[in-house]
């Protein structure tokens, strides 16, 4: 026991003198967590609260064009700047390049006229179907010239799609109004009263969003709840830089040679490293969670809500830490130089994070990756943390994630032992 205590003390002393390693293990993940959460949060706000700058060029002078402008305004997504109708696409494009707007919509000059014709045609067809006579069908004009949507290339596809969806809703609303008016006029020989028009087109049915949870709570997940677990796992696995280097250094500086001549099994050294770095990983988790709880709100970011099952959270953190430590020892055992340990360690963590769904959500991955991600320990860590943080689950709910993680950890341990044996180090 005294040997183990002395070894842990030695490892802690070395760790505290490795300033770069400490920065990697604590500083970098904290910076990542703050920056990524802030960025993601502002993206959410861009969609939900902030307005996307939009240039609107209405070349149409009719009623439908005005209605479309009003409908687009009411979508609530845009900070609309109207430009006069005689602006060319080139001029609008130049303003967009100057970052005056990310989106531009051009309503064609004959939009209202075309819309009226189409509305009359549809109402005419409807009346015909009802057996009523009408002379309003104009078979020559069935199509409406397209609305032009110009976008800045920085806008991502998914965001463009949501803007297109919003624009389609606005167009649908205008079209519906026009058809209603035409139909009403055909039947009653007078204009549709505005209050009736409003009553018909307004959508009174709300959408009730409910995030599912195991504990029945209806806390709405935010960017902090998503990011803190992910970056905590990332940070814990980044001990590979410090621990992997520590194992390699021990080998290349000859300490191993002396240790092998001493009457103590090298397993004591391995056990000590695991205990020391397990404490480090738990400290990392505690620091990052604390930052999420107390620092984030002061930065204007959503606060982290800890799961109700704190015992489960501790166990998941413990096994995640153990897996990270085991992986780091593996890297250290099989690397021959510090450069190898650092390079392979860092790249492999980023790869495992990418495969494991930390960088791209696993549900958005192609089918082949859905199989591959099960091999990444970071995937099981993330699923277990999300089970607690996002789904409000208890330990029993995340056992299905903990068991594969435990199995992968044991495999890492066995590989490290085999490596030590093969290299004649134990």
């Amino acid at each position, binding site marked *: 026991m*005294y040997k183990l205590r002395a070894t842990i003390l*030695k490892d802690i*002393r*070395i760790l505290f003198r490795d300033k770069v390693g400490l920065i990697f293990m604590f500083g970098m993940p904290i910076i990542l967590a703050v920056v990524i959460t802030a960025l993601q949060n502002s993206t959410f706000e861009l969609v939900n609260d902030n307005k996307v700058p939009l240039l609107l060029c209405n070349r149409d002078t009719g009623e439908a064009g005005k209605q479309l402008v009003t409908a687009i305004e009411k979508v609530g997504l845009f900070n609309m700047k109207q430009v006069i109708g005689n602006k060319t696409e080139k001029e609008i494009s130049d303003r967009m390049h100057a970052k005056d707007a990310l989106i531009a919509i051009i309503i064609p000059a004959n939009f209202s006229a075309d819309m009226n014709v189409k509305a009359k045609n549809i109402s005419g067809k409807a009346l015909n179907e009802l057996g009523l006579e009408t002379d309003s069908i104009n078979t020559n004009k069935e199509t409406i010239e397209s609305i032009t949507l110009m976008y800045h290339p920085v806008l991502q596809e998914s965001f463009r799609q949501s803007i297109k969806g919003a624009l389609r809703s606005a167009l649908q609303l205008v079209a519906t109004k026009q058809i209603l008016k035409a139909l009403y006029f055909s039947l009653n020989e007078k204009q549709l009263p505005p209050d009736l028009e409003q009553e018909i087109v307004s959508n009174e049915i709300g959408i009730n969003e409910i995030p599912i949870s195991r504990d029945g709570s209806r806390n709405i997940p935010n960017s902090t709840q998503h990011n803190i677990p992910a970056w905590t796992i990332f940070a814990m696995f980044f001990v590979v830089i410090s621990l992997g280097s520590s194992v390699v250094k021990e080998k290349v*500086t000859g300490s191993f*040679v*002396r240790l092998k001549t001493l009457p103590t099994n090298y397993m*004591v050294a391995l056990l000590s490293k695991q205990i020391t770095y397990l404490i480090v990983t738990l400290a990392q988790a505690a620091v990052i969670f604390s930052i999420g709880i107390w620092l984030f709100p002061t930065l204007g970011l959503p606060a982290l809500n800890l799961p109700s099952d704190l015992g489960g959270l501790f166990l998941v953190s413990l096994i995640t830490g153990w897996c990270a430590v085991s992986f780091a020892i593996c890297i250290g055992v099989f690397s021959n130089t510090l450069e190898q340990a650092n390079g392979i360690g860092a790249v492999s963590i980023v790869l495992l994070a990418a495969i494991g769904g930390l960088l791209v959500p696993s549900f958005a991955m192609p089918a082949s990756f859905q199989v591959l991600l099960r091999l990444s320990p970071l995937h099981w860590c993330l699923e277990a943390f999300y089970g607690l943080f996002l789904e409000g689950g208890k330990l029993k709910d995340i056992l299905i994630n903990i068991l594969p993680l435990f199995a992968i950890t044991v495999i890492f341990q066995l590989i490290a032992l085999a490596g030590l044996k093969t290299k004649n180090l134990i």
Partner: protein
Amino acid sequence: MATQAVSISNLGFHYPGTSKPVFQHLDLNVAAGDRFGLFGPNGAGKTTLMNCMTGLLSFKEGSIHLFDKEIRNQRSVKELFGFVPQDFSFYHELSPVDNLSFFGAWSGLKKAAIKQRTEELLEVLDLKEVYNKPVHKFSGGMKRKVNLAIGVIHQPKLLFLDEPTVGVDVQTRHVIIEYLKKLNRNGTTLIYTSHQLNEAEELCNTIALIDEGRIIAHDLLTNLLVEHKEDGLEGLFINLTGKKYNDAGCIN
């Protein structure tokens, strides 16, 4: 009959993946209390033999006993000896005290014994003023002293020394050699290898010359000098091993 500190019998060894054996049927005895020097050209097998004796290399043929205990598969035999490798084998980030605390524990000492031995070694090896400074800031000579201190912290009965003074100044060499003689007077058997033949003459009473994996001479240094009519170890060395370079044999 004198107690044997080291008894090697019929040793055979070859590195994995090579067909040429380093040793075949090698026998060697070192009496307890000796200051024994093992010399030979580069590639002769000195370091390999020392690594076999300290258990760093495992061999399949023959046996090596340290004070009648077989080196293979016996942890207790490791308590008998200390090892001072040619490379600095300690943690450079740590101070001499931290290194001695750790290696003392691994050598089987308890806290109080480590404290006492650390104080003694820092004093005798003149490291007291830098006891708490990280070793990476030390000169080569000071690092050699730390390397030696770690090897002797548990007061071993047998001490293996591989080039213990390489790269140090005259003063440091003097301190180290005097300390080794003192250890020997207190009962520690020394097994020493070096290319510093003047130093070896000063330290060793018994020597063995090894060449191409064979012991070609083994006796008291004085006897060998008389027998081969040489007045120094360097002349004896050239006389027995020839003048040819043998460095290519160092590549395993």
